[in-house]
């Protein structure tokens, strides 16, 4: 009997009961990857040997009766934006083809310490810039629900790996929705923790003030278990919060929301949202009411400026963060024929090494930071950020969490929006405000849209360092939905495009 359709919590229990070894569990997943990943293309690199070695080590530790963390021996897929020592880390860019970092990111250090088995690196939009994983230099990832459709982005590889049962756990990073939007369109769960809740050390920066690594899985509890492993203060990250991590696992198990006040953000819904998305969102609200929560409508008037501010702040920071890719110390080098200078080689390398979206954002960011334009663009965007923070602060005075649909639509077709950057950017309209304010955000599946039978995401937002609240609401909603459906959205019975 295969274990790949189990949850991470079930795998953990099976490992603890010695019903299965980590090596066998890992082999089952490697076999699944070999079986389906030619179609899905969730992985950029599969570290077969490394994974089996980690699995063996976890088995030995368990056999020796040593203290062992709940996720020890459970396999995981790692987004290719996180440094893992000696393992290719490309960020989906040609620029870093074959770059193997000489160090581990803090997230990887924590995963290794917990005995989690890292299967390999997952596909992503180049340097996390995109909402479809079409911007990967190594080709797009396909949505397991419909291979002609996008799996979301930038973390499409991580989400697709979960949906295709190639891994029960994955790490994503979220700058404007790159964990939550892929989770929404693949019917999986993704959490962007409070900014500073998980160390960014070793996360290749896209937009430093917005980037946040987070856990992805097929259930709220699995996500919480992984959250617990990777979260916590890190002295290598100056923006890391030196406080105890909220007990997200207990919150995920709590299964009740009696008396909680849940705010529906008026501006994150309605016009521009697909009918089936709105319908499933409303039904989820009714379930929460039936479970004793109070629903109120909340207005956050400045959210309508969030997208514009985001597309100034993120490219500005990116233009600076990506300056280091100049072919001098690592990465590819182009045009060094011995006759031209370093500057010309840098220009040729960056011309060839970066894809169109990355170049677009570097140029946009360079413009927004230029003298003479700084105040009008970057400076104004930072002020909008203040306004969005204030909107949240005001809203959280009267409600415990805020909710909205995660995305305006279900998964769109590959190629459908690749020529229209603005249309593509609109995908992130409901996820971006969370990053602007540094608060926590979760997406979990709330059903399939009736018109296209594709997953719809339900977003829960919680105040800074109150991440447990979204787990409490998410866990409750998930349990109610699964009992209503009779089975999880994603299970062995789910009719996916990949078999």
């Amino acid at each position, binding site marked *: 009997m295969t274990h790949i359709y189990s949850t991470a919590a079930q795998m953990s229990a099976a490992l603890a009961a010695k019903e299965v070894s980590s090596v066998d569990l890992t082999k089952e997943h490697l076999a699944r990857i070999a079986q389906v990943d030619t179609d899905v293309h969730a992985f950029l690199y599969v570290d077969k040997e490394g994974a089996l070695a980690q699995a063996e080590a976890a088995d030995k530790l368990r056999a020796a009766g040593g203290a062992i963390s709940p996720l020890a021996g459970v396999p995981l897929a790692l987004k290719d934006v996180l*440094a893992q020592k000696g393992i290719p880390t490309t960020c989906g860019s040609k620029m870093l083809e074959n770059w193997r970092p000489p160090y581990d990111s803090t997230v990887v250090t924590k995963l290794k310490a917990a005995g989690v088995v890292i299967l390999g690196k997952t596909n992503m939009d180049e340097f996390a810039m995109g909402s479809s994983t079409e911007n990967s230099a190594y080709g797009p990832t396909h949505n397991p629900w419909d291979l002609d459709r996008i799996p979301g982005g930038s973390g499409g590889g991580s989400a697709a790996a979960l949906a295709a049962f190639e891994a029960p756990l994955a790490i994503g990073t979220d700058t404007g929705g790159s964990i939550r939007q892929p989770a929404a369109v693949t019917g999986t769960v993704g959490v962007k923790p409070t900014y500073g809740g998980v160390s960014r*050390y070793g996360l290749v920066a896209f937009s430093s003030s917005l980037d946040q690594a987070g856990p992805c899985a097929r259930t709220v509890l699995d996500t919480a278990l992984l959250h617990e492993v990777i979260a916590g203060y890190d002295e290598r990250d100056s923006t890391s919060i030196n406080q105890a991590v909220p007990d997200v696992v207990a919150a995920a198990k709590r299964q009740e929301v009696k008396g909680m006040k849940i705010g529906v953000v008026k501006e994150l819904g309605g016009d521009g949202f697909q009918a089936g998305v709105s319908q499933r969102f409303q039904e989820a609200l009714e379930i929460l009411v039936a479970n004793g929560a109070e629903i109120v409508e909340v207005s956050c008037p400045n959210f309508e400026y969030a997208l514009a501010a985001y597309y100034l702040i993120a490219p500005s920071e990116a*233009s600076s963060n990506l300056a280091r890719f100049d072919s001098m110390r*690592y990465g590819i080098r182009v045009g060094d024929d011995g006759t031209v200078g370093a500057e010309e080689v840098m220009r040729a390398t960056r011309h060839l090494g970066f894809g169109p979206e990355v170049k677009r954002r570097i140029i946009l960011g360079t413009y927004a*930071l230029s003298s003479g334009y700084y105040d009008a663009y970057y400076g104004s965007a930072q002020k909008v950020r203040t306004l969005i923070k204030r909107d949240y602060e005001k809203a959280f005075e009267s409600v415990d969490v805020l909710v909205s649909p995660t995305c305006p639509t279900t998964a769109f077709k590959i190629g459908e929006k690749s020529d229209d950057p603005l249309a593509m950017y609109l995908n992130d309209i409901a996820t971006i405000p969370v990053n602007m304010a540094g608060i926590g955000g979760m997406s979990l599946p709330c059903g399939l849209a009736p018109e296209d039978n594709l997953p719809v995401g339900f977003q829960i937002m919680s105040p800074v360092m109150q991440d447990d609240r979204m787990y409490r609401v998410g866990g409750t909603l998930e349990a109610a939905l699964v009992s209503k459906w009779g089975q999880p959205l994603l299970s062995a019975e789910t009719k996916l495009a990949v078999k």
Partner: protein
Amino acid sequence: MSMNYDAAVAAYEPTLGLEVHVELNTKSKMFCSCSTEFGAEPNTQTCPVCLGLPGSLPVVNGKAIESSILIGLALNCSIAPFSRFARKNYFYPDMPKNFQTSQYDEPICVDGYLDVEIETDEGPKKFRVEIERVHMEEDTGKSLHVGGSTGRIHGAEYSLLDYNRAGIPLVEIVTRIVPGTGKYAPQVARAYVTELRDILRSLGVSDVKMEQGSLRCDANVSIAPIGSGKLGTRSETKNVNSLRSVERAVSGEIERQANRLESGERIIQETRHFLEESGQTRPGRSKETAEDYRYFPEPDLVPVTPDADWIEELRKRIPEKPSIRRKRLQEEWNVPAKEMESMVNAELLDVVEETVKLGSDATRARSWWLGEVSRLANEKEVAPTSLITAAQVAEVIALIAGGELTDKLARQVVEGVINGEGTPREVIDKRGLKVVSDDSALMVAIEAAIAAQPDTAERIRGGNIPAAGALIGAVMKATGGQADAAKVRELLLKHLGQG
């Protein structure tokens, strides 16, 4: 040139501005824990942070902040209650991130001054140099240019990079323009840098070695016709690597600019390089347009907000201003100015003062440190203070004063201490170096003799005076027959209560 310096300053009023970069002497770098030690093998003091590897993050060295505040306080600055790092974006291969993390519009210290005194035709005159700001930044790596015929940058076929220096903390001290120096601009510039160097040394925050580059000066010079009330276009002269060069660079620039104006040419705002051999400057890179650095607040670092208690705590550590201290010590010790300068230049003022504080005569302390100790240090090519302590020198001087050692014997004692033979006392004992006519020196030998023959001593105490012969003989033997036997007898009997 048609116009010499005297003619230039007869017609034109110079205006001066100085930017001094100081490498702090912290053990670790500004934003990572790599060593800052000078002279290590290339790239042995590098890590993901100072190499700018993807994913790495900076964390501020608290000691560097402390040193910067100390510098600000010593220069009579206000310490900013809120200061921040920014990114200064420009591409250069010896700068790993292609931005320099630096303070921009929110520096840590502002609005200070430093008074300097120079000799003028009318006697000593004081000038106040106003400090605009003191801010922190990081140093770059070092490039080595290989292949070209001249060894200069142009014509090199390739370049080699060593990042050991990258990320070493730098403090930049920027003056406001110094008006009204007239023809004394070069002397004021030199006096300022000298005074600044001495202050930094007294604070113990930097090695301040201009020849090693731990203190670097850029001189901004402009001139305008006397009485015009205008400011001319300035040039910025870099590569000024000694105090003498500061003076020469300023006078050379005044002369060059005057000649340009005399021949009807404009002064171009540019960076120039000082040439040590000729005392001239040559033009640096000419820029078509002013560089656009696209500064913005560093998102990876958080603001520095020193509280008042910390600042007051640091204020207590500011030592007496070196120039005032020198004047005071010169008076107290009654030494000629030239001798004073020798001590300062040899960096021996502190240790001489310490020696004097331990009771030594100032003249003797000075002559031991500048003389014998320095001579031995020169032989060994080390710093005098690394050979022997102030306490040991003070002990030797006391022994001379007490008549126990002659100068000649004392030199042997010092040599012995330096050779690791122990304390001065131990060296004296081991080498048997004593002027034995001295009472206290003889007493040591007498006590030794008593200790060796306690029974004999007891008999003498009991009134058996003739028994003293055995002990006197022993003392005479111990002193190599150099002692006065009658004196030995007198002291011995007195010591044993028979005197």
